């Protein structure tokens, strides 16, 4: 068992003509990304508590939760929640309230959470509060700004790094591919209605970093081959490079996929969304490494690519 690997994804001498489907690949990718951008505006992302502000109280009642009774109790206390819903087991209740408006809203937000807690424990004695979060409007807008800054700066850092380490054509193709990946992931978020919060920003960043790794492997090989086969047509050379690195691309993606899978299955409410989005991002990132990143180079033009690599 140890003397030789038992499995391979593809045979080493297998040559798949990926470049034949390059137009198809680019069109499908562009359409999906455009659709995602539309989804981003309509219906838009469902903002999580971090970014939206407001209150979430999750509680576990001693018996199966009586939603009518809980709603009535909250109503009686003068609290009008935006949602009282079940999650997990029938005993679990989640009450969410959007950030109140008005001059005194910061203090109101913090006061509401105590009101909700006392109202439900009065209605259902023995209720355990699992989680009680209240995020004021000023904090949530700061968190949102910081989240976007983190995303923006990361993308810029990656661009600069790839630019310094590779030639301009590679850097531009890499960042275009990353943006295509990122938009699709955002579209996935809009469709699945997972809440977009700081943890989700972390997921997007991890996908970005991971997807870049994948591209670096393929680009490294293309650069090596450009120097090695000086007369090979670019299209052929790109196909060769993708095929040569195919086992790597699939293998490295598989290990990250396997690591993220249990998080999606057993990670609980905090991590399920995060890990599911990660899994989606890994699949998208891997396929773009194969179908998008290299074809984009072909569009950049053979002459410039060769000249730049020779100089480099």
């Amino acid at each position: 068992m140890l003397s030789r690997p038992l499995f391979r994804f593809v045979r080493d001498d297998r040559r798949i003509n990926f470049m034949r489907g390059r137009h198809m690949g680019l069109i499908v990718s562009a359409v999906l990304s455009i659709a995602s951008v539309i989804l981003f505006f309509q219906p838009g992302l469902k903002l999580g508590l971090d970014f939206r502000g407001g209150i979430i109280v999750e509680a576990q009642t001693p018996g199966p939760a009586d939603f009518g009774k809980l709603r009535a109790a909250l109503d009686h206390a003068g609290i009008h929640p935006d949602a009282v819903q079940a999650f997990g087991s029938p005993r679990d209740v989640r009450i969410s309230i959007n950030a109140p408006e008005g001059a005194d809203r910061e203090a109101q937000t913090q006061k509401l959470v105590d009101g909700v807690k006392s109202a439900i424990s009065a209605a259902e004695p023995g209720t355990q509060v699992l989680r009680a979060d209240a995020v004021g409007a000023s904090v949530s807008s700061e968190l949102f700004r910081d989240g976007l800054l983190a995303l923006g700066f990361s993308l810029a850092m990656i661009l600069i790094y790839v630019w310094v380490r590779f030639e301009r054509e590679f850097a531009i193709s890499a960042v275009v591919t990353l943006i295509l990946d990122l938009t699709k992931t955002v579209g996935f978020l809009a469709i699945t209605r997972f809440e977009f919060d700081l943890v989700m920003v972390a997921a997007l960043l991890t996908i970005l970093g991971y997807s870049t790794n994948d591209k670096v492997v393929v680009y490294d090989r293309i650069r090596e081959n450009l120097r090695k086969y000086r007369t090979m047509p670019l299209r052929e050379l790109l196909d060769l490079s993708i095929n040569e690195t195919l086992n790597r691309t699939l293998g490295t993606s598989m290990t990250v996929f396997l690591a993220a899978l249990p998080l999606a299955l057993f990670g609980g409410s905090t991590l399920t969304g995060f890990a599911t989005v990660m899994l989606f991002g890994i699949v998208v990132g891997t396929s773009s490494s194969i179908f998008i990143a290299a074809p984009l180079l072909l569009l950049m033009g053979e002459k410039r690519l060769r000249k730049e690599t020779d100089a480099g």
Partner: protein
Amino acid sequence: MMYYSRLRLLGVAGICLIGVLLCLPNFLRSPAPSLPWRQIHLGLDLRGGSYLLLQLDLKSLEHDRLQSLQDQARQTLLDRSLGYRDFARDDATASLSFMPRSDAERDAALKAMQSLPPVVPNEFTTSEKDGRIVLTLQHDAMLARAREAVAQSIEIVRRRIDATGAIDPSIAREGDDRIVVELPGVSDPERIKSLLGTTARLTFRLLAPNPSVASPGSTMLEDESVHTQVAVQDHVDVDGTDLTNAGAVIDQQSGGWAVTFQLNSAGATAFANVTRANVGKRFAIVLDNKVIEAPNIISPITAGNGQITGGFDARSASDLALLLRAGALPAPLSVVEQRTIGPSLGAASIHAGIISLLTGLLLVIVFMVLFYGRFGLYADIALFANLILMVAILSLFQATLTLPGMAGMLLTLGMAVDANILINERIREEVKRGRGPLQALQAGFDRATGTIIDSNATAFLAHVMLFVFGTGPVRNFALTITIGIVTTLFTTLLLSRLLVVRWYALARPKELPV
């Protein structure tokens, strides 16, 4: 480079051993209190507890200072028998201005204003405008004062929280005007919130001559004992900062709860003077702009102690005593974010984290052995070392571990073996090209190194950004991944390479298991 010097061998083994030793405190009880026993702390999301983000109201700090400066200015003018009219306070421009009685007194008044003692250096400027004398608080000085106020508030918040008996609280500054309070194990932070939300500024002031209408130099305040508005003089006769002690007692006469206080000598002298000069008048005890009670001064109080009776119960009396002992906040604090995690959810999260970590680890290990054989097994050994080193570094820094942090660890492990995959694939290619085992190994390791560093560098940069801009659990995620990238470079470029080299040196195989 297929030869590892003895020194290098010992170095790699030594680092792994140190890693194991650093992990131990997390699993064992400290044998002696003198040993440095550094452990990972569990985050609030795993341990259960409350997180409060408090904001200091800097506007009110400025407002208060303006008011006290006005008080001082009036007193100084009075002392030097200089007249003034139309004394105005403008919060928007943070300035005071007045008209001297006559042109002749203008210079003297200006000098008097310049002689006022600043709280911080260059606190305010004095100038003349349209015949008026203007005092303006300086922005830089106010910033310095704000920094001081935050530091002071942290100290007072700590004292108040310690007095509630909360275990292991963590209190830290965040940004310019915020304080983060973490209270492990506190699943109902209501009492602490109300304690922190009280400024607890206690002052003793005389009522205005006519207590039913506001006149210049007095303000209408709510009298809580009778629920009416009374006019209280702005001038503070005795301030709560002069308190040395306070306690909750049962009042001998009424049988209800009361709070006793003791003043220091400066406070006692001031208290004696004002009560001696104002026998028969009403003296208001004001807490945070609300009058607790305003009794008549029956006789001078010279001992420097007294008692406040204001319809307290046992809880409110002991809370007020606690607040008075801990001192007043320099400005009001308000909660702008709170997160509470109950103990049962924390326990469930630990469970979820550990199950995910173990399952993920197992999946990756099995995959590597099935797809990469013997070298896959070596990668798995390096993977364990990686996990140990990550835990070791987190323990060394006594870092916090949250649920996203655990996810970060697992993802790091998933990405760590990527480097082994790159190396193995490269070796395999070199073998296919007809190189001998030794040359193939050499070329594989050397050529893959650049790619590995490139791909880790981009992930590193992305997560450093997340660490800089993120907060809370997400920051912890970025931290574990950043640490994980460093340990990954060590375990793949040095450790797993060492394992392969040692195996080759011992077995001398004709064919590589790739």
